[in-house]
């Protein structure tokens, strides 16, 4: 019996761009983020010769467009911004290869920091603006998603104890809203708390997996996701939310049903590559291993 995952795999394979990667649009050129996610999704769904071949071709393409300083831009011919670099690291690491590319990318990530400002004495901005995470665009402020993905990728590369990673974890904790959930990275502005969002909360929980951060933060994030995901069927929010819950062994029993409904809402051929990839990653029991979270858990137990 063909499951939605089989159909999604087939669709993803068909949607490959002219370059050996995937774009944001079905008919678009390849970009770093969807290429990395699609390749990871193929590996997560089935570690078979087709998945390996397509993932390696994508990884080779990423290696080709990697800058001399180790960063990756958005796509071939678009050298900045470089927030996609962690995604490439995660794919290369999942393939267990590309040591040089991973090392250089990680070194670049460790060497870059977002713009900081002294803490806002006026109280307009409630988060600590002096903590340096990672920005979307170089020389701008830190935000949640690029910081979380950088932390995840750097921990994957064994930089758990690096001061930049510790600072990134500190930033993630600082940016939580209402004790545990997260949004794009604003806690409160002018005294108003910005609402939490599922995908950033999931990414934060992934990045914090197996760390010793305050338990209330994790419990709050999981509680928010368990409630919010009941009504969310959009791929991005549902998928990252579930992956975040998985990271803390809080996967709801209805998760597979929700994922199937999300796919059905668009139909496999009607979904963009990144959407399919995210849903496939959330469906697979292999994802946490590919992202390095299983290893984080093992090392924290020791």
């Amino acid at each position, binding site marked *: 019996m063909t499951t939605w995952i089989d159909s999604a795999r087939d669709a993803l394979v068909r949607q490959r761009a002219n370059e050996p990667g995937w*774009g*944001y*649009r079905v008919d*678009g*050129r390849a*970009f770093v*983020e969807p290429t990395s996610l699609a390749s990871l999704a193929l590996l997560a769904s089935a570690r078979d010769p087709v998945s390996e071949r397509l993932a390696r071709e994508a990884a080779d393409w990423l290696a080709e467009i990697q800058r001399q300083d180790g960063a990756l831009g*958005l796509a071939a*011919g*678009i*050298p*900045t*911004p470089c*927030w996609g670099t962690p995604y490439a690291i995660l794919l290369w690491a999942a393939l267990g290869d590309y040591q040089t590319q991973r090392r250089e990318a990680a070194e670049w990530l460790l060497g870059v920091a977002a*713009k900081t400002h002294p803490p806002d004495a*006026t109280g*307009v901005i409630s988060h600590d603006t002096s903590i340096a995470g990672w*920005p*979307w*665009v*170089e*020389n*701008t*402020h830190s*935000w949640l*998603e*690029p910081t979380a993905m950088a932390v995840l990728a750097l921990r994957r590369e064994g930089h758990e104890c690096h001061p930049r990673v510790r600072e990134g974890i500190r930033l993630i904790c600082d940016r939580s809203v209402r004790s545990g959930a997260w*949004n*794009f990275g604003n806690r409160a*502005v*002018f005294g*108003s708390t*910005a*609402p939490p*969002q*599922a*995908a950033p909360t999931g990414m934060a929980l992934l990045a914090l997996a197996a760390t010793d951060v305050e338990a209330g933060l994790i419990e709050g994030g999981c509680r928010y996701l368990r409630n919010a995901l009941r009504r*969310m*069927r*959009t*791929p*991005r*929010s549902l998928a990252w939310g579930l992956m975040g819950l998985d990271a803390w062994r809080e996967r709801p029993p209805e998760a597979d049903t929700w994922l199937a409904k999300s796919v059905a809402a668009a139909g496999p051929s009607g979904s*963009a590559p*990144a959407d399919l990839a995210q849903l496939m990653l959330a469906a697979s029991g292999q994802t946490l291993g590919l992202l390095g979270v299983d290893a984080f858990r093992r090392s924290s137990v020791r």
Partner: protein
Amino acid sequence: MTRDLSSESGRSEENSGPSDVPERRQSGTTCSSRSRLGRRAFLAGTGLVVGTAGARWLWRHTEGFQSADVTVLKAQSYDARLEVLLREGLDELGIDARWARGKSILLKPNLVVPAKESPHANTHPAIICAVAELFRRWDAREVFVAEGPAYYRDSRLVLDESGVTSMLERAGLEYVDLNHDDVFSAENRLGFTGISHFYLPRALRRADLVVSLAKMKTHHWAGLTLSMKNLFGVVPGICYGWPKSVLHAAGIAKSVLDLTATIRPALGIIDGIVGMEGDGPIMGTPKRANLLVMGTNLPAVDATAARLMGFDPQRIPYLRAASGRLGPICSRHIRQCGEPLQGLVRRFELLDHPTMRVFRDA
């Protein structure tokens, strides 16, 4: 063609106004230089100064001899009569079916949050639908909706929960996520920010006409967000982030002008039936104004809307900077069509914070 985005953002403060736009130095003389230059040179130099200053005064006073038409209409609710109202309003501007016939038209609404809790934050789906239907009746080749929300990377969630998805499906309208579109590089036509080029979504190349379908709202950084600020949602988040930090770092007012000049929307329509006051653009409270404001010159449209909201456009930095550059903001240079402004002004309150006093005295 490659662009280093990170090196091109300016270092200006947010909400910067024309005070930080570089001005040519005035030529001047001193007593000692006068004796060196001679009487004739002194008179010539003085004349040049007076002439230059006079020209500058004249340019500012006449706003570069620019004028524009803006239509203001009363609209009591988001009901089926909207298409008729819109047709009447555009007719006042001399816009009819010829404007749309055979064209690909991109409708750019302001969709910022999943709006279940705050429908007043987004351009109402009924407005989007009515505009689309009108242009379809006018035999547009295609009409599609496109947006790139700045605070939610999951734009599908924003559309689903604000009722836009169901409207799009009923109306058979395509939606393009501008945050995740393919991109091309376009020269910044104005250059206030110091950014030489913008990455723009491929959807702009597909469209013959871009229509800014804004919401009438206050904004805690910019003062107001109307048809010009709405264009922040055009630039892709994959290039500029969530929120679009590069634009904030370069200066909101400057970025608003540069994007308006580069994207060149053909029409601005502001949904002021129920707008937002207070802590806009997201956390404010509903404010009913029962108005639609529209025009082909966006500074004029926004200046008119600002007046209707109880603001002096000269106090809004991006409007002050736009004056004479992108369009008129002075009422004497704007031909008011439709309803007269008197009696329609509804004071939109700003956030109660000292930083808001730059936009309006308490």
